[in-house]
Every structure is written in structure tokens, then in C-alpha cells.
């Protein structure tokens, strides 16, 4: 390192053309491959979205809730998640920075705060997933494979409101929770589906202020809605999983689980790595080694996780 003049110029085969350590270089190479992986996921999402442009769910209608707040607050919760992740990125840089200055206690402080940020992000994501899986307004699946929604006039309403059902009541009173009942055969489930559609049609005929919005976001009149449902509806879906999705096209849910899940798994791995280096810092391993490069390497990974989220945030929630 010290007798640098003995080496050739960087592009002329000097033996340290990058002036970077082996470990950092390998972390960077790993991050390039990971960049391509995530780009492929987002590109695939874009493909499906372009293909089903007319019926693709609008993110603002899907992610509208904030813990402990009533009403609709689109974007607010993801904005908070983004803030948490940016904040934890900052605490990570600070930890790296104090590592350069060999200030062990400050490294411990900022690393701990980074871990707290990471865990907060994971918790938020768990809430977001829980809400997404549990469902919000409910939807109706049709034999065209698209999901239609209940509306009042030109405004999105909810299946629960139309059917006078308390969303949070248990499986015995809430007919949409029949999947929570044990020992249901496929035929019994189908029976529930048929029964649900039947009572939906009755309610819709009795309440003229309700109508439906088709997947391509065209509102029908009450009469047209009844006919459309009689002709096309197959079952009522509440919540989302890999097969059914109340919010719209089922691919949307698949991509949501896959991309945010893969990112969340990265965050989780990051937290594990951070905990390991925190323990090592406390034990004084890096102090003995004479440098905090390991903190830097994990820092690179952690910032990358933040970087990916910046793109997921834009392409899943904003655009």
C-alpha cells in the first residue's frame, strides 16, 4: 500500500487498478448482479402492466390505509416506510464514517440505530402485507378473469357496505370468511361462492344506489350491473393471495408479494449482517484488526437495499 510508486498506472496493469480491497470489490460485483435481478423483476412487472394496461389496479386505490387512522390516506404509509429506510441509510453512513475515525462507541451507537430502522421497516412491511392479504373493499371475480368492484354512482364503494356485513365479524357471521372454516371440501366452497353471488344480486336489486365498476374502470348503472353480474360473476373475493386478488388483476398481487417480498428478504438479511457486525464491534474485533472495513462492506449492501426500495417505491406506488 505504501510504496504505490512501484506499481504501474491503473489502466496499464498496475496490481491495484481499482485501489479497492478484494472484499469491497466482490461486494460491488455482487451488487451489480443483484441490480440486474431486481431490474428483471421490475421489467417483468412493467411487461404485465403494459399488457393489461386497461385493467391494471391503481396503486392509490390499493394502498390507502395508515395504522390507527381512519379514512383513506393513499401513499402516506409507504412514504413513512421510505423515510424510515432513508433514515437508516443515513445512520449507516454515520457508522461507516466513525469507523474510519476508529471511534468504537459511536460506531456501536449508529449501527444499533441502523438495526432499529431496519426492524421498523420490516414491521411496516408486515403490516402492509397483512392489510393487503386481509383485504379492504372486496371485489367480484368474473369469468373474464378480471375483478370488478362495487361502487356508489361514480365512487368506489365496498362489498361489505352493500351486503350490510361487519368486516371484522367472525367466520360464522361473515359469509366471506368461509375459507376460515375448517374441513371445507371444494364443492362446499363452490356452494358458498354461488350463495354469495346470489345474495349479492338480491342486495343489488334492493339497493338502487349501488352499482358496479368494471375492471376497465367504466361505471355501469344499477340495472346493467345486475345483468352483468348475473352473466359473468363467479365469486366474491376478499383480500389477496397468489390465486385471487380483490384489488384487480391477479398478477398484480403476485408481483406485489414477489418483489416486495424479495426486497424484504434483502432487508432481513441486511439486519442479520448488521447484528453480526455489531456484535463484532462490541467485542472489539475490528479495533484489533485495525480497520472497520467490514462495516463499510455491510454498509454498501445496506445502501443497496435502500436504493432498490427507491425504485420499488416509484414503480409500484407512484407511477
Amino acid at each position: 500500500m505504501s510504496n504505490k510508486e512501484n506499481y504501474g498506472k491503473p489502466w496499464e496493469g498496475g496490481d491495484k487498478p481499482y485501489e479497492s480491497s478484494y472484499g469491497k470489490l466482490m461486494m460491488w460485483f455482487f451488487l451489480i448482479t443483484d441490480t440486474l435481478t431486481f431490474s428483471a423483476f421490475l421489467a417483468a412487472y412493467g411487461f404485465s402492466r403494459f399488457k393489461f394496461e386497461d385493467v391494471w389496479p391503481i396503486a392509490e386505490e390499493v394502498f390507502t390505509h395508515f395504522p390507527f387512522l381512519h379514512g383513506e390516506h393513499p401513499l402516506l404509509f409507504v412514504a413513512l416506510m421510505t423515510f424510515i429506510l432513508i433514515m437508516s441509510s443515513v445512520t449507516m453512513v454515520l457508522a461507516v464514517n466513525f469507523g474510519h475515525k476508529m471511534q468504537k462507541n459511536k460506531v456501536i451507537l449508529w449501527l444499533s440505530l441502523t438495526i432499529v430502522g431496519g426492524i421498523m421497516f420490516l414491521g411496516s412491511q408486515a403490516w402492509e402485507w397483512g392489510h393487503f392479504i386481509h383485504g379492504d373493499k372486496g371485489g367480484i371475480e368474473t369469468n373474464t378473469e378480471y375483478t370488478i368492484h362495487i361502487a356508489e354512482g361514480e365512487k368506489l364503494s365496498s362489498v361489505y357496505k352493500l351486503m350490510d356485513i361487519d368486516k371484522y365479524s367472525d367466520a360464522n357471521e361473515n359469509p366471506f370468511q368461509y375459507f376460515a372454516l375448517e374441513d371445507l371440501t371444494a364443492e362446499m366452497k363452490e356452494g358458498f361462492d354461488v350463495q354469495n353471488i346470489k345474495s349479492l344480486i338480491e342486495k343489488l336489486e334492493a339497493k338502487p344506489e349501488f352499482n358496479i365498476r368494471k375492471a376497465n374502470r367504466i361505471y355501469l348503472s344499477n340495472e346493467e350491473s345486475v345483468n352483468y353480474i348475473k352473466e359473468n360473476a363467479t365469486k366474491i373475493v376478499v383480500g389477496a393471495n397468489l390465486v385471487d386478488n380483490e384489488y384487480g388483476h391477479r398478477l398484480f398481487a403476485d408481483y406485489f408479494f414477489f418483489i416486495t417480498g424479495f426486497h424484504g428478504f434483502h432487508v432481513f438479511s441486511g439486519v442479520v449482517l448488521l447484528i453480526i457486525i455489531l456484535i463484532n464491534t462490541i467485542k472489539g474485533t475490528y479495533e484489533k484488526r485495525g480497520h472497520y472495513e467490514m462495516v463499510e462492506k455491510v454498509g454498501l449492501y445496506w445502501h443497496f437495499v435502500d436504493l432498490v426500495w427507491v425504485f420499488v417505491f416509484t414503480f409500484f406506488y407512484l407511477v
Partner: protein
Amino acid sequence: MSDNQHNGNWWIWKVFWILLGLTTFEVLLGMFKPEFLVNTIFLGTKLLNHVFIILTIIKAAYIVLTFMHLGFEKKSLKWTILLPALVLVPYLLFIILSEGVHAYIVL
């Protein structure tokens, strides 16, 4: 090369405020959706989406160049990392997204 590192922490907070400001701006745009940005169509999509994408790329540049310290590395390292991403990702997006448009038209 890395004077920044030894001049205290002010630059970290500067980048933090930039990132926070850009994100807040994005969220506000997403909530209020200024009409002329929504109604103007440019290159096949709303102008608003172009604004989002540009802001996102600016944020990404700040994270990579300062937080990940790539801006202060040797030129050779910098381009070894950036070129594959800058070439392959737009290429991938171009072929897959135009394929998506095609699938929309024919299927």
C-alpha cells in the same frame, strides 16, 4: 480522494435532506396530481410519470455516488460498476417493455 470523510458529517446530513426533500416532493405530487402534469402525454405516458422517474434517478445517483462512496473511488472502479448497469438495465427495459406494448396490441 476522500476529503469528505474527514470533514465531519455535514455532507451526510446534506444528502439526507436532499433525499428527504425529493421524496416529500414525490409524495405530494402523487397526492395532489397537478392537472397539467397528468393531462400532458409525453413519449406514451403522463408527464407526471417522467417527473417521478427523473426524481428517482436523481435520488439513486445521490445514494450510489455519496452514500455508497462510488463518486470518490478510482475512475476505473467507478465505470466498472456503473457501465454494466447503465447499459444492460435500459436495454432490458427497452426490449421487455416494447414487448409488453406489442402483447397489449395483439392479445
